[in-house]
Structures are given as C-alpha cells and as structure tokens.
C-alpha cells in the first residue's frame, strides 16, 4: 500500500549517478546514506565541512571531531576533504552540488518548501536548508505524505513560513514520487496499490507524464 522509509530511500538513490556530489539532510534523508550501494561512486557532502562522507566509524576510527550536520559520528572515504563553513556553503550556493535531499513539513505545487518552523510552537532554525534549496542543481524532498493529523503535506499553497520559494524539483513520499510544475504535482510514480484518491488534495495531481 505504501513504501517504507527504506523503499523511499532506494527510490531517491535511483536518481543518483556515478561521479555526482550529494548532500543529505538530517531526519529522514539520513536513511539514504545508510543504503547507498558501495558500487555507486558518489561524494557525499555534509555542510559542516566535509566532502566524502562514508557510513559510520568503527571503535578504532571513531573521532569526536568527525561528525555530520546532524552531529552524528561518521567515517570518510578515500578522496575525502575537510574545509571551513564558508567554503562548504560556497560548494552549495555556487551550484557544485548535484542533489540535495531534505525533509519537509509542506511542499506546494508552486515548488515552495516549508521545513524550518511552526509559528508559536516550534523553532528549529533553518540551518543550511535555505542555502541548499537555492544552490543545489536538483532539490529532492523526502517526507511522509501526511502529517500527524492525517492531512496531506503536498498542498496548493504552503501555510507555514517558507524555506525557499520556487525551489523544489522532486518530492518522494511513502505514497509516490511527484514533480511540482508550478500548477500541479505531476505523478512520476506511485507506490504499489496507491491510487489518486489516496493522495489527498486530489485536484492538485496530474497523471503520469
């Protein structure tokens, strides 16, 4: 009926090509990092200043100064490099990152993303998300299709404060893959057994290309 987080991650990975550079956000996109196949040669960027992230450390390689943007311990692959935050965001803003995968609270068909605050309730701050959505060549939002109240997070117009305007290229949810085109979400793929009526805001979706 719907995809698991792992299946969603594999769908995201299917868009990656050998030789590309990829930034993976905190939250759900971290599953993508866990499932990257060893045969796929990519450089994973983490905005705190490392290119070439590679899985988790062993007891021997564990280092408190080797972390990702989620402040989790990581290891690095051959060819990795370290740099300061200005250079790191130069890679992002300068358009040198091929794919950026981020979590989301709301995405609308005008390609807007909201994922950094709920007024009066929750402030997480935008961290690097506003730079990532404006600088990366391809912005993929990976999130559950519905919020905790059961409402669709793919909407006609975002209500929450925006992270970026006109920035989202692709949305991967547990129900399918959608490409916002300014007016509607074009359905790229649906999870097995999912129908249009399961998507919520049905009028916003158009069938496969």
């Amino acid at each position, binding site marked *: 009926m719907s995809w698991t987080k792992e299946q969603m991650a594999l769908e995201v990975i299917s868009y990656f090509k050998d030789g590309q550079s990829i930034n993976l956000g905190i939250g759900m996109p971290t599953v993508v990092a866990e499932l990257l196949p060893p045969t796929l040669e990519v450089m994973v960027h983490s905005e705190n*200043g490392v290119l070439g992230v590679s899985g988790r450390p*062993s007891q021997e390689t564990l*280092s408190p*100064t080797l972390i990702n943007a989620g*402040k989790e311990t990581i290891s690095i692959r051959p060819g990795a490099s370290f740099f*300061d935050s200005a250079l790191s*965001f130069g890679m992002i803003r300068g358009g040198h990152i091929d794919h950026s995968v981020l979590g989301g609270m709301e995405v609308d068909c005008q390609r807007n993303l909201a994922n950094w605050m709920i007024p009066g309730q929750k402030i997480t701050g935008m961290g690097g998300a*506003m730079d990532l959505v404006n600088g990366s060549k391809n912005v993929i939002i990976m999130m559950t299709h519905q919020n905790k109240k059961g409402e669709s997070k793919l909407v006609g117009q975002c209500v929450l*404060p925006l992270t970026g*305007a006109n920035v989202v290229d692709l949305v991967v949810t547990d129900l399918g893959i959608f490409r916002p085109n300014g007016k509607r979400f074009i359905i790229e793929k649906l999870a097995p057994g999912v129908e249009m009526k399961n998507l919520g805001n049905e009028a916003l979706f158009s069938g496969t290309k």
Partner: protein
Amino acid sequence: MGLSKVCKNAEQALTGIKSGMILMSGGFGLCGIAENCIDALEQMDIKDLTVISNNIGNSGRGLVKILIQKKIKRAICSYVGGNPDLEKQIFAKEVEVELSPQGTFAERIRAGGMGIRAFFTPTGHGTLVAEGKEVREFDKPCIMETALTADFAIIKAQKGDHYGNLWFKETARNFSPLMAMAAKTTVVEVEELLPIGSLPPEDIHLPGIFVQKIFQGANYKNDIEFLILSKEAK
C-alpha cells in the same frame, strides 16, 4: 615577546571582555568549541553579550553554560534544534535571536573579516529572512546581507604555534577560521601549542595574522552528541 602571542590561560587571554560586547564563538554543535574559554566566561561577571555562534551551544553544554546564567542578551545563529535551553529563552523573550541561514551566516562572518560590507545572495529570498532587506534582480532575485564583526572571537584549534598559525582537525574547523578573521581580538586555545616554525607552511589552515592571543588548553572533553558506530562495530 616579539611575534609570540602566548598567554598563560583562558582567564588571562580573555582580559578585556566587558558587558555589552559582541562575541563570536566557533564550533558546530559541540564539535570544535573553545571549552576552556567558555568555562572562563562562566566565571566572569559580565552580561548583555551579543553572541554570534551557529548553535549557541547544544544539548545543555557549550555556550548553554553562559546562556542559562542569562549573560546573553542577543544571539545570532542558524540553528536552534538540539538546544532546548535556547528555544525556551526565545519563547520567554529572555533572549533576542536573529536566525540567519547557515551559508549566509558563514559568509557574513567571512565578509566581516575580509572587509566586504555586504553582498547579495539568493538564499532566503521569498522567506521571512528577506523581510526588510534590499532585493535586486540578477539571474534571479537576491537579497542584501550585511557583514558581521565582533569585539572578541573565542576559537579552538588542534595545533597552533606561538605566532597563532593554526591547524584544525577534521570537521572541527567549521566557523572558527572565519570568526578569527572577523574579530578585533581573537583568542585561540589549542590542544598542542608549538614553537614558531613547527607547522609546515603549506599545512597552515589559518595564518597567525588573524590571531591576537593563544594559549595551551587543558582538560578537553570533546563531547560527542550522537555516537553511532557501524553495524560491524556493534
């Protein structure tokens, strides 16, 4: 003396910090924070600080030590998640916070140190961050962001020589070299303090011209916020 900028300890290096000053503090979460300097600030009788730091401490540690002492009046940062003490003070209006997108935050500090007064970036256009800022159309609409400078910066490096040439370990570099450039007085604590000439010139991450005081730190905790090992290691 000559080219040496060596101080005895954090207390001596931080002489001159006063209430109401602007302070930059390096580190990403707890990675690469100036532990000795923060402990010294905890002991000092100062208040109304403006603190520029990506997270203002995290998980109850780092700069949170002086945040909960109510020494911070205003904070400029990019991320509050993982710092419940800060979130609480924001909602209680005990601290005024300016959230800046992390890349913009880093570039504003770099600009401050490089003599650039302002720059235009697409980051934040069409969001709350753009409110009240000049917008100009280049290949896409961009907003003007202004440079950040400070009275003091407190940063930590793995190695440094007596002149203040620095070498950072792994991802502990983050904002520290940028802040060192942007502050009038940069105080550096190091795990290994070395004589001038010990660091190969090609390997120096930050030239000592940006450093005013340096001291040998002690008792480092180097806390890990989220320890995750590989499946094989478990």
